[in-house]
């Protein structure tokens, strides 16, 4: 009996039966049951137009049967020569380029670039606390929006289409906040060397406050859905018990072990942990709605006034621990 799973044969009462894959059955019979191409190496080109590569990645795979034995990644499809372009432009114009470096995390690239330029110019301590606070605020919203795309598209690729719909629905909410603040949903060029393109409007503060009330409920929905056996559990079949595990990132690893002990597979546990990472914590400063003063001509603390206009309660009111479950 052949041990080769690609040209297996077995003895039956009716004689020897061959299972042939990938070769001519006449050849198999003539060689006494051995698939003549069983050790042939095949080179397969995956991408860049393959749907699963999102048009940005090409993999040259070397296969033996269904096993990938070698891979060469061709990653240059998204290279746009941003560094070279900025050589011919001034510092402020750089924001327009770096915001396009990662369309899921534009604010982060803008902020990293702005901080670097400010440090080079030696003006770091001249950036107003208000501008820095809004930068952090926008980065956090951007982080949540980016995670939602991850959660949604991963759900989609694993067959959980509702996760994609939910993820993009909530992301749209954040993009609305970006549009109110910067005028654009992505590629905002909002964080600039020296501060921000413009101040955050009061409506955006109201919208953010609404979002913080609304989003934890949605997270609960995601968790409930991902916990269900029909959720990501399918993705874990086949990987369970094979020793494959997530990256041992400090805290996540420990928590992940606990989730695994609770009977969840690696993909499911990882998704739940990332959803937990989106939990919005309310701090005292947030409850008071303080963004720090706008350094304006009148010296008025516009942040507090704005928070009052937006209907914020005074410090100390509201839930005692200032935390959402």
């Amino acid at each position, binding site marked *: 009996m052949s041990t080769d799973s690609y040209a297996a044969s077995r003895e039956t009462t009716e004689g020897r039966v061959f299972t042939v894959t990938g070769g001519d059955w006449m050849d198999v019979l003539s060689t006494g049951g051995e698939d003549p191409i069983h050790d042939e190496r095949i080179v397969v080109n995956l991408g860049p137009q393959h749907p699963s590569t999102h048009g940005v990645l090409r993999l040259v795979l070397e296969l033996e049967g269904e096993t990938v034995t070698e891979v060469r990644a061709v*990653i*240059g499809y998204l290279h746009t020569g941003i560094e070279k372009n900025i050589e011919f432009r001034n510092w402020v114009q750089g924001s327009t380029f770096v915001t396009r470096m990662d369309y899921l995390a534009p604010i982060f690239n803008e902020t990293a670039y702005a901080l670097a330029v400010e440090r080079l110019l030696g003006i770091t301590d001249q950036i107003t606390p208000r501008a820095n606070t809004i930068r952090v605020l926008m980065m956090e919203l951007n982080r949540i929006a980016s995670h939602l795309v991850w959660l949604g598209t991963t759900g989609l690729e694993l067959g959980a289409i509702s996760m994609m719909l939910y993820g993009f629905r909530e992301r749209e909410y954040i993009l609305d906040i970006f549009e109110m603040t910067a005028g654009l949903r992505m590629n905002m060029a909002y964080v600039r060397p020296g501060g921000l393109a413009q101040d955050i409007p009061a409506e955006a503060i109201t919208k953010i406050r609404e979002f913080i009330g609304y989003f934890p409920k949605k997270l609960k929905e995601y968790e409930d859905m991902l916990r269900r056996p029909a959720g990501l559990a399918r993705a874990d079949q086949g990987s369970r018990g094979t020793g494959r595990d997530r990256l041992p990132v400090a805290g996540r690893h420990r928590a992940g072990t606990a989730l695994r002990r609770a009977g969840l597979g690696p993909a499911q546990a990882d998704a739940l942990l990332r959803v937990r990472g989106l939990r919005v914590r309310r701090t005292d400063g947030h409850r008071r709605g303080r963004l720090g003063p706008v350094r304006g001509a009148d010296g008025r603390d516009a942040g507090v006034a704005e928070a009052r206009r937006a209907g914020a309660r005074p410090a100390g009111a509201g839930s005692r621990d200032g935390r959402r479950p």
Partner: protein
Amino acid sequence: MLRAPATPPASAGWCGGTRRWATRSGRSGDYFDEVYDALSEAYPAFADAIEHVVVDRGELTLHVKSERILEVCQAMRDDEALRFELCSSVSGVDYLASDPRRLHVVYQLTSMTYRRRVRLETAVTAEDPRLPSVTSVYPTADWQEREAYDMFGIVFEGHPALTRILMPDDWEGYPQRKDYPLGGVPVEYKGAEIPPPDQRRSYQ
């Protein structure tokens, strides 16, 4: 100042898990002298290898002779008082017309154990842009060195497969060198002609 003991515990290996010591003060720059002293102790050829040291904007940069970079990285990674386990970036810089050794390679090292950051910098000439690869010490440098080769034409000797990574394999020239043109064509829009970016007005 760090509360690091003279000899870190055995668990603080570079592969077998890391342990971090909290910094007492958050000020950067407290550890620069310690790193300098530790390297001069750990690395015998220190006086020959380190060309000069720059502390600017709260960051420490050691300028290393290009042929010594691999040895310095080995000491930086393995010495118990240094333990720079992570090389997060290898990048090229072209100092055309301001440095005779115009091509620089910059290594950003991080010590997870001590929570420290150091930058190593080397310089080579455009005529002989060769220096040892550090991939044997920092495997993460593999693709980064390929990028520096692709964009600046810097040759990392000992790299397992030094090929272009972003540009097509048959591309001629090294795009991020300062004497490489940006290119571009004039664009006509609603009757007006917009020149290519490198020919527009300068913002001096």
